[in-house]
């Protein structure tokens, strides 16, 4: 009978084990290393928790695992909190996890390094995938929390530097459960539009846990798959996240990201002013250069040549006239002299020939007396013969 009393059906035994275990281990915390982690399409998580000598199956239902700020990875040591459940059809027991946290900050660091190595090996960080950031964006997509200080800072910077731009904010949670999913959804949402020039993904400073969403694979892949260039802007200068490695450009802070995404209005004003000044300067230079060129051309040898030619001709002509003048003057006076001599000779020749023939000239007081009535007997009379004179 005692044997009979110890006889259980499988179901009875399993039932007793189930109630024993489930009552005994209703609220437990267990530390262990994750292995065989699987995130089922249904949203439930299945994994094994182990240490050097033992292992135990774990489940974490969708809805609860939403509250875990990081995605578990194999090899990461975690502390889970939950209860033991027994699953009679399979005769196994497992921990039904209610919450999970990394066993220490070092575990997150390890998770970070593991993901970094994995994505790096896949080439997600390669420079060849990194695109240029446009200089004059018309629309800047921003993925952050719309009510966060980081967004305020970014708006201020954009307004001060380049108010021509429009900010398209796809607001999302940036920390805690579901943040990584929302961030990657927002990046995808912006990529569905075709008017966004650049995307800034980020948030202000915080603890490693606060920033963790930006270390999640899903965010890294969303950034990598973004057709629009992405600037990462997570936390402070010293914070490096996986998002930073995969982004086209890493900015140390959200404000710095907006500065990298926008040209500076003051620079542009200076540029325009410089042009206005330069142009006015330059055009007066060009005009005065042209004037100089005109006057240089007019004074050039080529232009002077015809005038010189005319001057030369004048000179030649003057010279010629002068020579003619001289020539004629000389000739004229020569003939004049000859004429005078001839004339006097001619005249003297007439008288002499008459005298020669026997006529005489009667003179009184050196005057020729041609008529008797002019003759004065009382006066001295000169008689000029051909061969001489006498006075009577």
């Amino acid at each position, binding site marked *: 009978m005692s044997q009979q009393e110890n006889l259980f059906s499988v179901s009875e035994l399993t039932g007793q084990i189930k109630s024993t275990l489930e009552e005994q281990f209703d609220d437990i915390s267990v530390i262990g290393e994750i292995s065989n982690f699987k995130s089922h399409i249904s949203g439930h998580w299945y994994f094994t928790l182990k240490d050097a000598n033992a292992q135990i199956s774990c489940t974490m239902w969708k809805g609860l695992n939403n509250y875990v700020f990081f995605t578990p990875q194999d090899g990461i040591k975690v502390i889970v909190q939950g209860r033991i459940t027994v699953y009679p059809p399979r005769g196994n027991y497992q921990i039904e996890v209610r919450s999970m946290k990394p066993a220490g900050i070092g575990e997150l660091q390890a998770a970070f390094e593991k993901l970094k190595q994995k994505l790096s090996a896949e080439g997600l960080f390669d420079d060849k995938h990194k695109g240029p950031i446009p200089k004059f964006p018309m629309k800047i997509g921003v993925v952050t929390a719309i009510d966060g200080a980081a967004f305020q800072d970014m708006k201020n910077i954009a307004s001060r530097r380049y*108010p021509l731009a429009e*900010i398209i*904010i796809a607001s999302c949670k940036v920390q805690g459960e579901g943040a990584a999913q929302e961030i990657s959804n927002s990046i995808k949402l912006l990529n569905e539009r075709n008017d966004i020039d650049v995307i800034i993904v980020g948030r202000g400073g915080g603890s490693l846990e606060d920033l963790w969403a930006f270390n999640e694979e899903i965010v890294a892949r969303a950034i990598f798959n973004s057709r629009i260039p992405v600037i990462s802007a997570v936390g402070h200068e010293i914070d490096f996240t996986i998002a930073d490695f995969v982004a086209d450009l890493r900015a140390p802070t959200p404000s710095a990201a907006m500065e990298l995404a926008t040209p500076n209005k003051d620079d542009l004003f200076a540029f*325009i002013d410089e042009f206005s000044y330069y142009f006015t300067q330059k055009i007066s230079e060009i005009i005065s250069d042209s004037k100089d060129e005109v006057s240089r051309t007019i004074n050039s040898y080529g232009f002077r040549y015809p005038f010189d030619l005319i001057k030369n001709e004048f000179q030649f002509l003057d010279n010629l006239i002068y020579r003619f003048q001289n020539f004629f003057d000389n000739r004229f006076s020569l003939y004049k002299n000859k004429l005078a001599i001839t004339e006097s000779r001619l005249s003297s020749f007439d008288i002499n020939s008459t005298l020669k023939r026997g006529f005489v000239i009667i003179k009184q007081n050196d005057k020729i007396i041609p008529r008797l009535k002019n003759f004065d007997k009382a006066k001295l009379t000169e008689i000029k013969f051909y061969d001489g004179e006498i006075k009577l």
Partner: protein
Amino acid sequence: MRKKKESSFESSLQRLQQISDLLEKGEIGLEDSIKLYEEGINLAKNCYTTLKEAELKVTEIKKQFENGLKQ
């Protein structure tokens, strides 16, 4: 890299730079230089006004993707 139409502001600035380069080279006749000058001054004026009067616009896009992405 996708090709995208650049903003008129950006192309104005680029044209301004181009005009400056052309004038700098000094290979252009007087008449064309004056035309370029007028064009440049107008561009500079427009750019200045545009930039001075601009106000940042912020538009939020909501999470229509909750439905949109799952369809």
